[in-house]
């Protein structure tokens, strides 16, 4: 049984602090080159196929901008 995950990011609220990135065990996430209206490089799934929905990124996010989804296939 495989586990697939995905995240959504409230990009307008993301401050691009990046504290989530070292917590990702599958190298899924990165900061975008684009910026939001405040000028922050927001978080996105650079390698969405890697995500296992482990919730590490959302757990450490200081601004609660990450929602995590997970399915068992």
């Amino acid at each position, binding site marked *: 049984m495989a586990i*697939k*995950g*995905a995240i*959504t990011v409230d990009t307008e*609220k993301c*401050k*691009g*602090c*990046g*504290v989530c*990135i*070292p*917590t990702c065990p599958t190298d899924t996430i990165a900061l975008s080159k684009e910026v939001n209206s405040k000028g*922050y490089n927001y978080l996105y*799934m650079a390698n*969405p196929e890697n995500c296992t*929905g482990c*919730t*590490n990124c*959302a*757990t*450490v*996010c*200081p*601004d*609660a*901008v*990450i*929602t*995590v*989804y*997970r*399915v068992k*296939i």
Partner: protein
Amino acid sequence: MEINDIIKPENKVYGKSPVLKDAVMHYCPGCSHGTVHKIIAEVIEEMDIQDKTIGISPVGCSVFAYNYLEIDWQQAAHGRAPALATATKRLMPDKYVFTYQGDGDLASIGTAEIMHACNRGENIVVIFINNAIYGMTGGQMAPTTLLGQVTATTPYGRDAKLNGFPLKITELIAQLEGTCYVTRQSVQNPAAVRKTKRAIRKAFENSMMDKGTSFIEVVSTCNSGWKLSPVAANTWMEENMFPFYPLGDIKDR
């Protein structure tokens, strides 16, 4: 499997607690305050005590904590939150009452209030954010600033002869008969966040068991004050703060 097939309400495993308001927090990117706010909100949600929880915010960066958690709040004068909490809990013992205080608020100007509230064993929860600096006023020395640490008022590093020593107030608090649970935690990685959340939940539960005061120090970052990136601040904290402020339970009874 397409991403859109995964991102469905029934597959959601983690998201913002409804106890957190939608307001964008004013904290700097990567600030530990947001993480601690978030897990307090999650504990309140999971214990289903939103209607019974009263928070008391300090003076300092987290003065605005009241803008982020949808509960009733009191905003105390600098250092006095434990006095407000004392009266609130004694007058309304069926409520969960917590103070949220920084190091300047709790360990400097408010030392009398925190010591005596803890010594009386008030059935309250104290959440103490120790980032070794005054954030709101622009990065001045805090009572918990490490020796050698550069701040706006210790531009050549904290010197014990000039500035005294960093204050391990949590160890002092643990000496007081009135405290039942004294612990030092952090929120820089998922495991630490989960441990801190468990500690906060335990503290809230203690406050209804007439056991005395529960005190949780969260060793935190102030990346703006420390003049580091958020990620580098986490590393600096692990390398410099943790040796002097070791994590773990100091008292649990």
